[in-house]
């Protein structure tokens, strides 16, 4: 079931969703078993920004029916910290590394992209223009022109595959995908979390320290399938599909909707080896319906 994605040969079509698996932490908790049976065919880092970020105040989580609302707020060590502390460990993973980056200005994004462009450890980059927790993410990713301007600036800075991660909180994600493709993106990924909110029971105050948050998990899968399908109809570059994938059947649905790879996010919280299970189930399903979701 090996899959070709933007020139990368991956062992199977299941990767992780950015920000939902910390391979370094997992190694502390699970030891060598993590490397021995790494669940994903590529590893996507949590979003890296130029400067270090603490992230949002607690509480950051609220459980939903078949889903999760989070306002993590992109905590990370910043570019320097990532290069020094994280990159060496992540480069040692048995799969290609995709670094997810985000900037608050086009120049910041440029700096991040050009830095990782020079790192042999990095196989590809994912550009987060869609995080609903941070002002810019929402605005850039919802507007085709913003995305176009951004890509025009940063595309020339690297030969590595550049994946643009779309926000679902837009009237027309397909239009944004077209803008990304036209400005040279190698692939798009979707969906990021959908803007949501929970109130502290019996009050009119938000539960989350960050105020609003993003919804993920099985609750959003049909929305993801619809957006993937409409993006598929609009662009020819590959799609990384995500949003609520918890089984091989779910993965197959997103592949059939038009994705080339699927990413597992929230389901990894319920089981760290969910990615491997999804890939195995997918393998079985595809053997049964050989015409479906061929890559």
């Amino acid at each position, binding site marked *: 079931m090996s899959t070709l994605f933007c020139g990368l040969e991956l062992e199977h079509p299941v990767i992780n969703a950015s*920000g*939902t*698996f*910390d391979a370094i*932490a*997992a190694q*502390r*908790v*699970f*030891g060598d*078993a*993590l490397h021995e*049976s790494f669940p994903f065919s590529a590893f996507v880092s*949590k979003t890296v920004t130029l400067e270090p970020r*603490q*992230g949002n*105040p*607690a*509480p*950051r*989580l*609220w*459980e*939903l*029916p*078949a*889903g*999760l609302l*989070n306002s*993590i707020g992109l*905590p990370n060590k910043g570019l320097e910290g990532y290069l020094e502390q994280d990159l060496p460990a992540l480069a040692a993973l048995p799969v290609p590394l995709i670094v997810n980056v985000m900037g608050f200005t086009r120049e910041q994004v440029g700096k991040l992209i050009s830095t990782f462009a020079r790192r042999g450890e990095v196989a590809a980059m994912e550009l987060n223009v869609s995080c609903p927790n941070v002002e810019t993410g929402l605005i850039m990713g919802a507007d085709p022109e913003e995305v176009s301007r951004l890509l025009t600036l940063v595309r020339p800075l690297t030969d590595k595959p550049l994946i643009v991660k779309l926000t679902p909180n837009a009237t027309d994600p397909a239009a944004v995908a077209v803008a990304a493709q036209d400005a040279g993106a190698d692939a798009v990924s979707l969906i990021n979390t959908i803007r949501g909110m929970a109130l*502290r029971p019996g009050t009119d105050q938000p*539960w989350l*320290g960050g105020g609003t948050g993003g919804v993920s*998990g099985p609750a959003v899968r049909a929305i993801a399938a619809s957006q993937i399908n409409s993006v598929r109809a609009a662009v020819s570059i590959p799609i990384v599909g995500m949003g609520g994938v918890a089984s091989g059947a779910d993965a197959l649905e997103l592949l059939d909707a038009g994705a080339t790879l699927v990413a597992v996010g*929230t389901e*990894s*919280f*319920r*089981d*760290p*080896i969910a990615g491997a299970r999804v890939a195995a189930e997918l393998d079985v399903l595809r053997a049964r319906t050989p015409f479906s979701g061929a890559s």
Partner: protein
Amino acid sequence: MSAGAAQRTRAPFGVRSLRLSGRSEHGAYVVLRATDLDGPPPQPGQFYMLRTSRHWGAGTGERPFLPRAFSVLRATPGGSGLELEFLIEAVGPGTERLAELHEGEGLTVLGPLGAGFKPPRTGHRPVLVGGGVGIAPLAIWQDELQPAPFAAVVLLGFRDAEHAAGAELLSGAQVATDDGSVGHCGLVTDLLDAELDAGPPAEVYACGPPPMLEAVRRLCVERAAPAQLALEAGMACGFGACFGCVVPTARGLIRLCLEGPVLDAGALTDETFSVPAMGHSG
């Protein structure tokens, strides 16, 4: 390796479904016992992410969805594997579902997770302070602590008699209840206050609701007694993946599932316990 490494047993990678080998009620609490064929023995203070192997969901508010964190209450070698015990107080859809599990049904676990208690410093006598369901990690810790040179002092606080029934899970406990129905009428920190005055220097181990932990922290700072506190935070994953379980500390926000749940009181600040919490009952 860091100083805390000894208090961290690594977990098998991935969840496993255990068979429930026993279930008992202790007043307001339920103890679940499950046979762990593959897992290593946990360290006292470590926790597991639990869910029922079937029908995890569709309760109040169409929840639970994510697994729930539980301190290990006890872990004893049995005939066919490790017998893990957990103490459950039903406070919401997840704990309600777990509390109704029957013998023979499946309990899906991930763990042991996090870092547990460190042994007392030389010359210090261990004083265990528990509030409500927070007594759980103290039971396994009492089992493992050496009786010499000091037997552990155990101070437990509960809301009322129904909850105080949980005190039978530890031995020789002094009990306080809010309503005075059992033992001292008042807070368990009243007992701690007195205890800190008695005898050789104490090292305090505490687990309970945030206001209790905050009171213990303040008391121990005042008396310069070292204290290790087992905290709680809402957790989605338990293994550092979601960045959701952060608590404010002197080092900034840390992931409790990874750096805790047991933290040195000295690492905490006035803000640590100000976060809207899981709502443990005392």
